[in-house]
């Protein structure tokens, strides 16, 4: 019996040592990117799905158990996960993935963030002091984060460094080509005025040159109210929008109401990998996003 227990423990530790990089990604987009770079050398666990609001996640027991075993934690950063990730980190008993360690990677640290507030006051709703955290919907950011992530993965798992660089290189080549295609396809979207449910699309709109003219949420993180929607509707006269955008995880009620009243087209975007059937990976995410925008703007 004793020998059996010993064997079990030994097996566990050896198993840990042998396994390639174990990655805990808080959101699907960075999980998908890590998979592109790491290929078969990494084991990626994604903590949330495209149908969950990344701001509001419970520090579930399963997340603690997964974080405990990770070598690398990839967060979106910029306080997106402030409501749950700090707790998961602290209670995971995993020294490698604590903030400031090489095993902690926050994607937003490697790009220029938009909407960094001059003053931080909750009177403005659930604002993020470090700027808007939804950085992945600008494909140029995906490339930047990818380069930084590759370096980090190579640092943590030197044995597979060449494979990671190769993986990134292949991805980046395809990505550059796809970016050219998306930009060409999305050319008619330039200057199109849109309403958004939440400030989830700031980087997307910035990339495509679209114009945000209003938000259905009266303040970030506060659900749309009828009063605010009526106000937005009135503003349609002076500053008309063409589309009203929401992410797959947001309720369709407010944008449908707006669309019905103001004659806009309501567009549901996958927001992240897995948000629609087409958004199977990062390429699918942008393919589908551009197609849905074009269809809505037609």
């Amino acid at each position, binding site marked *: 019996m004793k020998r059996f227990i010993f064997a079990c423990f030994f097996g566990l530790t050896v198993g840990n040592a042998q396994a390639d990089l174990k990655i805990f990604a808080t959101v699907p987009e960075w999980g998908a990117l890590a998979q592109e770079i790491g290929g078969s050398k990494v084991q990626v666990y994604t903590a949330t799905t495209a149908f969950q609001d990344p701001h509001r996640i*419970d520090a579930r027991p399963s997340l603690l158990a997964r974080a405990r075993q990770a070598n690398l934690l990839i967060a979106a950063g910029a306080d997106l996960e402030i409501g749950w990730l700090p707790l998961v980190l602290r209670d995971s008993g995993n020294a490698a993935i604590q903030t400031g360690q090489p095993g902690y990677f926050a994607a937003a640290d490697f790009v220029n963030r938009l909407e960094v507030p001059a003053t931080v006051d909750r009177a403005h709703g659930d604002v993020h002091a470090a700027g808007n955290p939804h950085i992945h919907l600008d494909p140029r950011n995906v490339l930047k984060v990818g380069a930084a992530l590759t370096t980090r993965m190579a640092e943590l798992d030197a044995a597979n460094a060449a494979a990671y660089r190769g993986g990134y290189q292949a991805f980046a080549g395809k990505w550059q080509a796809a970016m050219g295609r998306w930009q060409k396809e999305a050319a008619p979207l330039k200057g199109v005025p849109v309403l958004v449910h939440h400030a989830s699309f700031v980087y997307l709109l910035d990339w495509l040159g679209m114009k945000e003219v209003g938000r259905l949420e009266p303040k970030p993180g506060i659900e749309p109210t009828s009063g605010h929607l009526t106000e937005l509707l009135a503003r349609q006269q002076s500053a008309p929008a063409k589309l009203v955008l929401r992410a797959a995880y947001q309720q369709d009620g407010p944008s449908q109401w707006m669309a019905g009243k103001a004659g806009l087209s309501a567009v549901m975007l996958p927001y992240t990998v897995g948000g629609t059937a087409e958004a199977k990976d990062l390429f699918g995410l942008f393919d589908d996003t551009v197609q849905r925008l074009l269809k809505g703007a037609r």
Partner: protein
Amino acid sequence: MQKSFAMAALLAASCGAQAASDADLAAIRAQIDDMKKTYEQRIAALEQKLVQAESRTASPAKPAPPAPVENRPSVASANAFNPEVSLILQGQYRHAKNIEGRGITGFVPGGEGLNTRGFSVDETELVLAANIDPYWRGQAIVAMADGQANIEEAWFQSLAIGQGVGLKVGRFRAGIGYLNEQHPHMWDFADAPLMYQAMFGEDASYVQDGVQLKWLAPTALFVEVGAEVGRGANFPGTDRNNNGTGGGALHVHAGDDVGVSNSWRAGASWLKTRASERTSDFVDIGGATAQGAFAGDSTTWLADFVWKWAPNGNSTHRNFKFQSEYFVREEKGGLTCVGACVDSSYKTNQSGWYAQGVYQFTPQWRAGLRYEQLDSGTRDFGANAANLVVDSYRPKKASAMVDYSWSEFSRLRLQVAQDKSMLGITDNQLTLQYVMSLGAHGAHKF
């Protein structure tokens, strides 16, 4: 005269300059934005080239970083290191019967009893927390009420041990059960379950001055084991000035997801404390009050279970939470008695449980029901069996609540309850409560 004319001219000139510079600024900003965009594209291309070049030349032993520089917000002042500060404002309006020395029939009271009615402000909690250095994190919670400030928690926690080990040292809420670690502002009801009041008194939580060691198993299933030793000064134990320890606890919790929409956690805990001269009132056969002092061991067993559901795991709009806990407490020792009684042995075995469900049906509204029951069980006073009254009673309480949250930082709650925790008294209670969180509000546990 001349002076004021000059002033006016200056003012006008500066206004003109202002207007011109605004337009200029906009133009400059646009130019900068353009430049930024082109640079960003070029940088991205360069980065890619760099990685390509590296992968061609790289020796795995010395990987040169492709160097996208980290771009963290920089605050240059010393107070950037200030701890996270948050403050909880909590208060209520309560309508209930006036019962002096409110308690639970058949259970030893762990405090003065909660008999506040009308408008009142609950304890105001001040929370300070920060990473101390790469190895430790610290947190202090000070509960302020009229004329006093209590250190509710003050501990430091390990960050760098690894291997699933977590160490906490100081004053902390014991990791036993489910509700024990939660502060009142996290409760789903305006008051704690009777069970917690019976176990730990009016603060409804067991707080330990000591050391906690936890270990999280390296498995896909969440399994966490914890052990605590400490002073054991709080009810059901008493403070003694001794070397060694006055109390200890063991707990194990397991949890997992079921599909994407459900998750659960279950646990079992054991708490042992020692009491000496723990005084409480008894009623003797003649109906008069007798003062008894208990000395001995108090052992509490707890079982806890939580189940959460949210469609697709997205709890923002709709979610449901079920939680239930059960306890058994055994106390063994001697009773020193003043009044119409003698010194005797003392042995009790008592239990209780609660179950509650809370449903959030819109982003702002939640409603919940709670039912609870205790059992005063067996109380054996040995030689005092003929002297002291032994109430055998099953205290019960049913509560219903509905609450509204403007945001995750503000909540207003209405609760009605029928409280039959005292023999012969049915107390219909109404509570209107607010809970407001200011500042850097940390994450809540599952």
